[in-house]
């Protein structure tokens, strides 16, 4: 097992990761794809909102906030 493979919501702030797999389907999957979250895309966790959720991520140069429900369905590999 590779310990670096985690759901996106476990990615610590300031860390980068690469998308491994999307486990959502339907509209949510499409929306994730539209954001450019395809295999191998680099993501950086930027900023937590005051109450801890959602978290803002840098995805292909755009800052996108995702709720933990959505982020948990994106499996990433953390880059150390």
């Amino acid at each position: 097992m590779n310990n670096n493979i985690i759901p996106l919501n476990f990615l610590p702030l300031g860390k980068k990761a690469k998308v491994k797999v999307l486990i959502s389907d339907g509209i949510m999957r499409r929306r994730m794809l539209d954001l450019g979250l395809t295999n191998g895309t680099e993501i950086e966790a930027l900023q937590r909102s005051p109450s801890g959720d959602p978290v803002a991520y840098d995805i292909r140069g755009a800052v996108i906030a995702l709720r933990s429900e959505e982020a948990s369905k994106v499996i990433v590999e953390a880059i150390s």
Partner: protein
Amino acid sequence: MGLTSQSTGIGVLDSELRIERSRVDDKIIALAGNPNVGKSTVFNSLTGLNQHTGNWPGKTVTNAQGKCIHKDKNFIMVDLPGTYSLMANSVEEEVARDFICFGNPDATIIVTDATCLERNLNLVLQTLEITSNVVVCVNLLDEAKKKKISIDLKELSYQLGVPVIGTSARSGRGLGALMDAVYEVTNQEAASTPLQITYDDTIEEAIRILEPAIWDLLKDRLSSRWVALKLLDEDEILLQALQKYLDFELTSDENILQKIKEAKDRLEIAGIDHNVLRDKVVSAIISTAEKICSESITIENEKYNHIDRKIDRIVTSRIFGIPIMIGLLGIVFWLTITGANYPSEMIAKFLFWIEGWLTEFFIWLGTPSWVHGVFIMGIYRTLAWVVSVMLPPMAIFFPLFTLLEDLGYLPRVAFNLDNYFKKSCAHGKQALTMCMGFGCNAAGIIGCRIIDSPRERLIAMITNNFVPCNGRFPTLIAIITMFFAGVVASPFQSLVSTLLLTGVIVYGVFMTLVISKILSKTILKGLPSSFTLELPPYRKPQIGRVIIRSVFDRTLFVLARAVLIAVPAGLIIWITANIHIGGSSILSYCAGFLNPFAKLIGLDGYILMAFILGFPANEIVIPIIIMSYMATGNIMELDGLDQLRELLVSHGWTWVTAVCTMLFSLMHWPCGTTCWTIKKESQSWKWTAVSFLIPTVTGIITCFFVANTVRLIGLI
């Protein structure tokens, strides 16, 4: 008479997509692009229309149209809602896609953000699959330059196979060249060979199986390659739209049905199911975009966003996020309250000085006293109150609020508040539609289209009225300055006023959350749906333009509406106050009738009547209260705002009356325009009635509770 939309094939779509050509050779140009790339600014600059712009995603929620004349040709520009893709994941994306696909525009301009081009290319590449009449507009070049991002437009154009024009729409640069390119494309002067994305071998094979059958049937009506891909993709919503457009079902054709099966079998052998296909298609588009960008963009400074990130870390931080938000709101209110005081006083003095002259003029004319009564004491006075009490706060609040909007702060508000909305089982974007409600609740209701789940959209619509619109803001401010500010010693006046107003607004937001939660647990049961929120880069607001826009677009518009309503309202009040039946005027009969109920909720009959008469426009509530009191009381002459408090007190106002009037103003039925908009948007009388009743009942309960608690514990 020119061609109508019916005859050009647009008529089959929604009424909002209908375009009227005034001449046969008018060209229809669709303006598409990702949210927040300055599309509306491009549209405004080209057409001279005042489509409201703001720095947050999803500003354009309906199709705006405008005309642009270039080289003596008419171009009808259609501003589409911003979308990231044409795979239609929400109503607004659907509207945009349907227009590009089925609206038969002569050309489509895709506005892109130079600072974030790779992400924008997704939409460009998807559009190129549908039509070759595309002009790509790389906007915000000035911002890109600041961030040291340089874009090789020639290379980009070569790669994409369509004209690419760089612009900085806010300063108007490049727009001429953009229209030149559009002119050439629509006159077929430039032959474009758009880039075609190559998919996985198996997918290409499947397309080759299906495409000829579609071509046989559709010929040039639509790109057969694109239709083939969509048929394999089984995008239900798109296929329905396609059927509506073609007026027949593609899958009813035996040959096509056969070929679809064949192509699907081919995909299945390679293990490509419905989900895998979509992934592969999107991945191919995105990797193409990546490749194009790597060849045409150079980023000198990888850390070009670091200032934005630093600001975000402060304004959305755990400790400072919420306090900064409330603080900013407080500053805006403080500036509005202090700033509005003096002009209000001056305008009132001036208008009542004119009244004096007019009165003398009427006496000189020798008109009967009822003429003077109707025109001066009724109509003119109500108008004077509307202008003097309402205009200054509006004219100060809106530019300030628009500045925050232009800066890009509102999406951060949504980011900060999202968790609370999630806990209320509501949509995160409801924070944005709530902010729109500050401008105008009707606009807020239309804005609810950015929420895709019907359940959450209804919740956002029903609760939108809990934030005061620009008609009700001055009401709150007027009560505060007339009633409370005078009580405290002068250095603290504006501070107390600001705190009170901020408190009322925070309470409104709190009620929005409470009611959303209650609705989610009762008549609109459900869980929050997924959502993504973009936090766009901060931009330096264009102060001059913001002031002009907000004064002309909003303030004058709202004021004109208020004046229009004030004329008949003033007339009614004067007449009812001066026609006596059995010793009392009709006005006091009506107020007397409402009085017992009104007293229960801490108001009086006149106040409640003012709210009822204010149904067409909330702006006139305070002027009506003043007029009714003056018509029935002893004080006949008021020449300044300082005496208003005496007028109110002499009619039995206490601080409880003021608080209850403010609460009732915050929570009562939506104004006429808003109700009408809710009906139009929800397509249902039932939900309109719910939207009418919920704030009203909430207001009545709250006021009842406040008034009677105070009475019980004997505070007054």
